[in-house]
């Protein structure tokens, strides 16, 4: 029980998160009692500013402290805690292994950077106490999810994560946002219940629900259950795949991610979708065992679903004019790269999948933060409005370009490394024709990725001549406008609190590609353990 301290970051973030929520709620109740709308009730303007400073300080301070505690807990050895017994042989049990370390580190880095970014961004969305309250709650829940040591504990925090994160989606309170949040909620719950269906069966046919590399399925119980168990496992894959945006339960993702405030979209698209990946890794590699699935129809169905998703996501992204929505479709496609790597059940595929978890988190988070800056500083949401943006904020667009290259997978950026391993995994796996079809689909999707990301860079830096074509006076006017924007451009980079996280992410996206050794070794080590 001496390892109980590993849960201290959770306690900290949950405590402060709930405090912020209660504070925000109490303010609203007081405002409602006074028959006034919420905004003026917060007092005069300077007073309000001071209050916001406190909120920001509290949120970021808590995040930093929690991050230090979390990383300290994660990287100080294999610790485990049994909190209490939910049922006879089902404890709420936390155990830190390499997978936990990998995921929790990614979560922490992204969460802190996005948190800092939000302090500026959320000023134009309002309701910051509520936002940071839920933001901290989700962090605490995610740490628990990553530390979970058995299936039921994981399921508990998986559901809590859904419930804690959907208020982030409906943040702006428009009808569209509320509907999107409900869609997100119900898709996620539908997926979770499909997962639960599988858990019911696994509980009977596994020797325990505690995660063990290589699985815990007990052979004697399985014999004679050839029919139902694969069905249950496939349902679990589809169910947990809902969170990862896998076809056929992907439809919530392009609806929910764009309507959320940009930092929330970044966190959702970078991190929350990865919880689905984590759940699938835990189920396939730590409970069922890859040997049970290898060569079965379940593996092929799963692989086909991931490839369909990869292609469909890219294609839809290519056709989508709204930037954030385009990025959401891109997430659909990219996360299924990861799932494809898991589905081939080979060590290289697994390594590639783990690498892509981290790389995609960094890159997609960076892209959403960029989109947020375009929205925040210039109010631009559609891709065609972004022509010439490179003159106003060159640093931001350079970061964007770097992220785009990484997502396409052009060396020496990080995306290249993970895709290399994914393709290797598929080519060397014993999966028949799929070992060629898979990499081919990934390649086509990479082309599409280039097609939907790079035009923004090109238009951004080189708006071209179309704008100046037309009648003479029109051209003159346009040129004046252009000159105006160009003149203002040099001084229009966003505030440091928004720019610095972006630069750090860009450095990570590049750095991890330049020095991949340490990451590939770590991921490869896990892969050797589970397969």
């Amino acid at each position: 029980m001496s390892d109980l301290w590993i849960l201290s970051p959770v306690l900290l973030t949950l405590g402060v998160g709930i405090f912020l929520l209660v504070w925000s709620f109490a303010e609203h109740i007081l405002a409602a009692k006074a028959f006034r709308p919420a905004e003026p009730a917060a007092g005069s303007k300077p007073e309000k500013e001071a209050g916001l400073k406190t909120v920001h300080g509290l949120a970021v301070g808590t995040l930093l402290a929690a991050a230090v505690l979390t990383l300290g807990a994660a990287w100080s050895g294999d610790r485990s805690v049994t909190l209490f017994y939910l049922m006879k042989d089902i404890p709420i049990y936390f155990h830190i292994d390499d997978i936990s370390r990998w995921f929790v580190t990614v979560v922490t880095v992204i969460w802190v950077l996005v948190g800092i970014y939000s302090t500026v961004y959320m000023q134009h969305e309002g309701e910051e106490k509520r936002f940071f309250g839920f933001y901290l709650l989700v962090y605490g829940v995610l740490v628990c999810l990553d530390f979970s040591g058995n299936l039921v504990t994981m399921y508990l925090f998986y559901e809590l994560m859904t419930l804690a994160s959907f208020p982030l989606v409906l943040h702006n309170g428009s009808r569209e946002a509320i509907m999107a949040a409900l869609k997100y909620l119900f898709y996620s719950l539908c997926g979770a219940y499909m997962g639960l269906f599988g858990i019911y069966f696994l509980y009977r046919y596994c020797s325990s629900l505690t995660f063990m590399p290589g699985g815990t399925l007990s052979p004697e119980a399985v014999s004679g259950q050839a029919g139902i168990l694969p069905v249950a496992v496939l349902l679990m894959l589809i169910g947990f795949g809902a969170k990862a945006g896998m076809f056929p339960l992907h439809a919530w993702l392009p609806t929910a991610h764009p309507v959320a405030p940009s930092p929330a979209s970044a966190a959702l698209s970078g991190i929350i979708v990865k919880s689905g990946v984590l759940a699938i890794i835990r189920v396939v590699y730590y409970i069922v065992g890859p040997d049970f699935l290898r060569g079965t129809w379940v593996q092929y169905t799963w692989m086909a679903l991931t490839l369909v998703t990869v292609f469909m996501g890219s294609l839809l992204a290519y056709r989508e004019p709204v930037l954030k929505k385009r990025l959401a479709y891109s997430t659909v496609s990219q996360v299924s790269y990861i799932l494809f790597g898991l589905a081939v059940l080979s060590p290289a595929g697994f390594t590639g999948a783990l690498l892509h978890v981290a790389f995609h988190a960094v890159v997609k988070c960076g892209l959403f933060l960029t989109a947020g800056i375009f929205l925040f500083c210039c109010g631009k949401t559609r891709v065609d409005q972004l022509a010439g943006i490179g003159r106003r904020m060159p640093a931001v667009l350079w970061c964007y370009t770097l992220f785009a290259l990484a997502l396409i997978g052009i060396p020496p950026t990080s995306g290249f490394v993970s895709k290399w391993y994914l393709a290797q995994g598929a080519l060397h796996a014993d999966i028949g024709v799929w070992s060629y079809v898979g990499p081919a689909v990934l390649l086509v999707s990479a082309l599409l990725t280039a097609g939907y990301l790079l035009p923004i860079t090109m238009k951004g830096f080189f708006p071209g001549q179309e704008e100046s074509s037309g009648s003479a006076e029109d051209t003159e006017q346009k040129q004046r406008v252009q000159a105006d924007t160009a003149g203002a451009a040099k001084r229009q980079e966003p505030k440091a609190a928004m720019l610095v996280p972006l630069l750090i992410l860009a450095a990570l996206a590049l750095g991890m590609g330049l020095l991949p050794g340490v990451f590939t070794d770590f991921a490869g080590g896990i892969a050797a353990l589970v397969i």
Partner: protein
Amino acid sequence: MHIAIMITVVLLPILGGILIPMLPFHNRKQMLIYIEALVLVNSALIIAMLLDEPEEAFVLFRFTGDLRVSFHLDGLGRIFAAMAAVLWPLAVLYSFEYMKHEGHEATFFMFYVITYGITLGVAMADNILTMYFFFEMMSLVTLPLIMHTQTREAVLASRSYLYYMIGGAAFAFIGMIFILAYGTTSTFVPGGVLDPAKIGDKTNMMLFVYVLCFLGFSVKTAVWPFSSWLPRAGVAPTPVTALLHAVAVVNTGAFAAMRVTYYSFGTELLRGTWAQNVVMVLVIFTIVYGCSRALKETHLKRRLAWSTVSNLSYILFGVVLMTPLGLAGALCHMLFHSFMKICSFFCAGAVMYKTGRSYVHELDGLGRRMPKVFVIFTISGMALMGVPGLAGFVSKWQLAQAAVASENPLAWVGVGALLISALLTAIYMLTISVRAFFPGKDFDYSKVADAEDPNWLMLLPLTVFVLVIVLFGLHPQPFIRALQEVASVMTVS
């Protein structure tokens, strides 16, 4: 302690209830104190009785030979009695506040308290005749409660209630006759009382009678196609809908179904037969049907009533698995669901009482004005949909485990139905919470300025219920062990 305590806890509320309109109370307060005292004393007696564990049966009177009205407290009855003992005093407390605006309090409380005694009669019935007697009494005594408001709608609802109940009882009566004719005794014995020698080659007929009898008793649990009376009965005052139509009356049906399945017909005869399949299909269908109707329903209380229809069939699903684990799961859900559903109903009642709103679309933005009620409502909703850490997850886990372990493919379909229903539950419960807490940015809060949280008479029961839900969810082991002990009696015989 003397075994006569068993008859005391049945008769005390009945007689004490009848006295309510007759006693010369000086004011309302005196009457309320009398009622609460009466209920509390009875609950204390029940708890004393449960601790004392009387072994023998108490025979009230004999008709002839084996036919007698007698009481005996066994494991199954103990759980039902304990549940009633906890819920009644709290529900009465809530009613004190709620019934202020309904009027005719003396009559209302008379029937409300009498039902307490009758519920215990069902719980402690030693044989099928006694159970049938109290089962019928239950229908008759609760009838005036549905009619309470005397509106046309209420009269029609009570009429349909009566028809359903009488019809159901007729089916159940057929079953009773056959048990008397083909059984060795009419007393409840774990594992059943049917005599194989008497049945001979008439197994199919017995199975047919079982289906009739099961459906007859299950009319009270609103199994499809007999479910429409329950939402219509929602016109009754909320304490009635909450305690009787979500807990006492409907659980009586489930309880009776358990008795006839496990204690009279016996699972040996039934397991794996077409009769089991027929009832299981009906039950699985009701699980999904109830939820779908709840989703369509816009009246808050009727929505909860449809949700009850579905959840009661969870209990019946456990019953018709016909394994000890199934019975344990059924008991578990009976116990847990009672707390969850009474909690959500009381929240709905509090909203109706304080604001007069009863449709879901009228609840926008109320979360800020009635935060306590809506936080509790949200927790009970999450418990119903089965969020881990709350009661619903545990009981669904027990049911699903029993279904998986029964190795019956139809039961696996049932597991799927449980989860579909969980998703639908999430939709129809959480949309209410989202409406209440996030009405949208343009919402005009002056529209809900009149609403506020109710006083302690209503909040105390709600708080207790929500604590119990969390307790069941986080530390269910002692309860589950007790329930499994009760159910394991089945394997011995």
